[in-house]
């Protein structure tokens, strides 16, 4: 699989994502600098985590105006799979490829911890290898992961099954107390209406290696293997 991994000034999970993609799905990863104007031939686009442009203005906002975004948007609309993790999710909302916005965590603090997620919909290219309602554990590390969208958007996301992951407790209950950042409806990850673009705050690329005691993020990557079968 050919992957375009986009690097913005301030991206800092690019190398982590590269290693995970290489190890888990034997991807050929092209690191694409934000100033490029066109993507190489690509089966998957990944926007990694980090602090593009230092989170100045709003997280993801400056990166969303980069040259390379024109081609990313074009490809995304054509159906090329796009995975945005953490800052990548923020960039996708700023670029309007995904609805809503990621605001400051409700406790106004950066938070880094393993969080339980419930796989709400496994009928996407990113979640197909999980079971529906499977409870997984993936770390978050962000200051601005509090998902917000107007009621009608939230309803639409819920009704069309576009919420893929929700924060929950270890038994799968989605409640206020298991919400680490204040996101509406405990939203941790969503897809666009044609379901080829996933944005998620948790970091699956940090959860594949038994040595770091967490492998629950693996299937976000391995599910993608099925798209080119």
């Amino acid at each position, binding site marked *: 699989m050919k992957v375009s991994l986009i690097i913005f000034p*301030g991206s800092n*999970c690019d190398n982590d994502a590269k290693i995970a993609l290489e190890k888990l799905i034997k991807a050929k990863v092209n690191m694409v600098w934000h100033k490029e104007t066109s993507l190489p031939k690509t089966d998957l686009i990944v926007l990694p985590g980090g602090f593009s*442009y230092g989170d100045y203005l709003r997280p993801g906002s400056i990166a969303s105006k980069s040259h390379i975004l024109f081609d990313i948007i074009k490809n995304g609309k054509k159906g090329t799979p796009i995975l945005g993790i953490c800052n990548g999710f923020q960039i996708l909302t700023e670029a309007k490829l995904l609805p809503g916005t990621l605001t400051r965590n409700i406790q106004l603090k950066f938070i*880094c911890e393993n969080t339980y997620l419930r796989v709400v919909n496994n009928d996407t290219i990113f979640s197909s290898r999980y079971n529906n309602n499977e409870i997984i554990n993936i770390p978050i*590390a962000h200051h601005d992961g509090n998902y917000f969208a107007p009621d009608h958007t939230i309803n639409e996301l819920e009704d069309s099954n576009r919420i893929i992951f929700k924060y929950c407790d270890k038994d799968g209950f989605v409640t206020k107390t298991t919400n680490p950042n204040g996101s509406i409806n405990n939203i941790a990850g969503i897809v666009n209406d044609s379901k080829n673009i996933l944005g998620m705050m948790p*970091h699956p690329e940090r959860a594949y290696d038994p040595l770091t005691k967490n492998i629950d993020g693996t299937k976000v990557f391995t599910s993608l293997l099925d798209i080119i079968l």
Partner: protein
Amino acid sequence: MSDYSEIEIKTSDKKAEDLGLTKSEYQKIKKILNREPNFTELCIFSAMWSEHCSYKSSKKWLKTMNFQNSSVICGPGENAGVIDIGNGLAAVFKMESHNHPSYIDPYQGAATGVGGILRDVFTMGARPIANLNCIRFGDPSHPKTKYLIEGVVAGIGGYGNCVGIPTVGGETYFNENYNNNILVNAMTVGIVSANKIFYSKASGVGNPVIYVGSKTGRDGIHGASMASAEFDQTIESKRPTVQVGDPFTEKLLLEACLELMKSDSIVAIQDMGAAGLTSSSFEMASKGNLGIEINLDKVPQREKNMKAFELMLSESQERMLIVVKKGKEKEAEKVFLKWELPFSIIGRLTDSGNMVLYKSDKIVANLPISPLVSEAPEYDRKWKRSKHYTQNPIKKLEKLDLKKNLIQLISSPNLSSKKWVWQQYDHMVMTNTITGPGSDAAVVRIERSDSALAITTDCNPKYVFGNPKSGSKQAIAESWRNLICVGAKPIAITDCLNFGNPEKPEIMGQIVESIEGIKEATEVLNFPVISGNVSLYNETEGKSILPTPQIGAVGVINDISNIASIIWNENELIYILGKNDIELGCSAFDEIIEKTGISEPPTINLKQEKKVGSFVLNKIQEGLIKTCHDISDGGILIALAEMAINSKIGAKIDHPKLDTTPLEWWFSETQARFIVTIPKNQKAVLEKEAVTQNVPILHLGIVKGNTLQINKEMSISLQDLENHNSSWLPDYMNS
């Protein structure tokens, strides 16, 4: 008025004193120059000869330390120390204080502390792989404490998280002696190819000197002198001396420097830290025995009409000075343009031996480099031996209650969980954190390999206050033990010596004795000091902090399949390795329960440390021991409780019998001891080998159930333990 009217400012004893120079230092300056210095020159002397840059009070003693073992590639004197870690790789590390700035402006002070130590490491060509941070605050009841923690923790996180380097460990500590002078000691560890290390020694007359990074502003001017003076009530007015950090620019600078280092363009590189352009340019030229010319008009500037002394003393962050090979300017330019960093060729190396500064085509300073460095003041300050305490007799409190005391200790500010702190730090980015915060030592895998580094930071300031020499030995012994606990071979340390005013003989005495202790421990354990920092004048209105020689230590794990952790497993047998005794001087038990006051801390027997430690390490490397925890603050019972909480499994402890052992035994902080667990079928092996090698071994009990139970007398559920341990800090911060 001209832009450089400072030349007209008349210098005098008084002016010199305002800049922190003594009368005799001012005389010495006039002698070196054979004339009166102009104001810019005087400012340069003031910065270079400040305690912070010159180590004038501590140099005499620092020189006596142990800097060598077979792994050391580069000891003190460079931006950071370097050790060989095998497979053609080297680890670069150092710890540095940012105490005064963090008290004045907790967020920016702590953030820029992280930024500074990161630059020290990547300046040498290393990619940073881990940060640690030791933060010490005043009494929790002090009105400023909460505000300081809030800001410092956010600042450390704000900077490290953004640059993308995991913060994997450190210490958080409270004591009223830090009420008006907190400590923020930041450590960074990086990895570099052993044959691609960059140094600061300039060479090649005519080679261009390049400035890259943030533009220079008026922030941090006189920072080095500020960090070299005591505090008083006017500190708020010193806020402008605190620099403001921009981690985004740091990240760009990190990537740009590492990218340029892949070519063969760079001759020498030095970050602009304390005393900014002054000390970086002096150090590079001085190490190369060369002169340097700088055109200050070329320095990228954030503000208008900056004067020469402001440009030379500014401590604006995220700046580097690089000497490149002549003709390689274009290569450097290409990289810096890619990363959108301000840069400029600001000067060149000369053979004059002088630093010559130009501004608006005029010479604004002309100073001989070698005498300014070699004749920097070095003081043999008066010192006196610290008071010798004896161990206070145990008070034999009538109602000593094991369970109650355990709860009191485990929920006390210093022993309670610090998760509230470290969950604000990204401790996982780079995906190599095998063991993160909250353990004996952090374990960080070396990318795409089967080896790892173990890193720990340690110091018990109460011990050091009770006995500066043995307390300092203890800090090193504890860091040695903590590395062993995870299965790492201890290699070397960095130290950050935080003390009060060295002009007071009793404080100077603490410094001297502490260095004596460090020297002895590093020699016996073959665990040299390869880098460090001295922070003096940590006093407010005459009251000193506790003497705090903070140790940061690094060890190597060659095979990550044989590491140990604090996590034990059901049905394993629990042992203490090492000799048990009852020593409660300066212990957590004494501080919280007996309250007898300062007394002699536990004895340090370095040979015993070495014997027990080597035995444990050996057994971990052989794969026999997988669970290990050192016994430190709070003693055996606290260590057991920590293991139970982290493992989420309890224990049944049958030995020794309570009727034959005083309750204090469970809280003794006797050194050179480890708690280990092993599977039942290895019982005979471990016991036999310990006896053969003359390592004291005591069987305590078995890992089992969901309570921590001591004989029949005490039992506490894991849930209770966990609640008592985890709630203090968040409750305090939310109160």
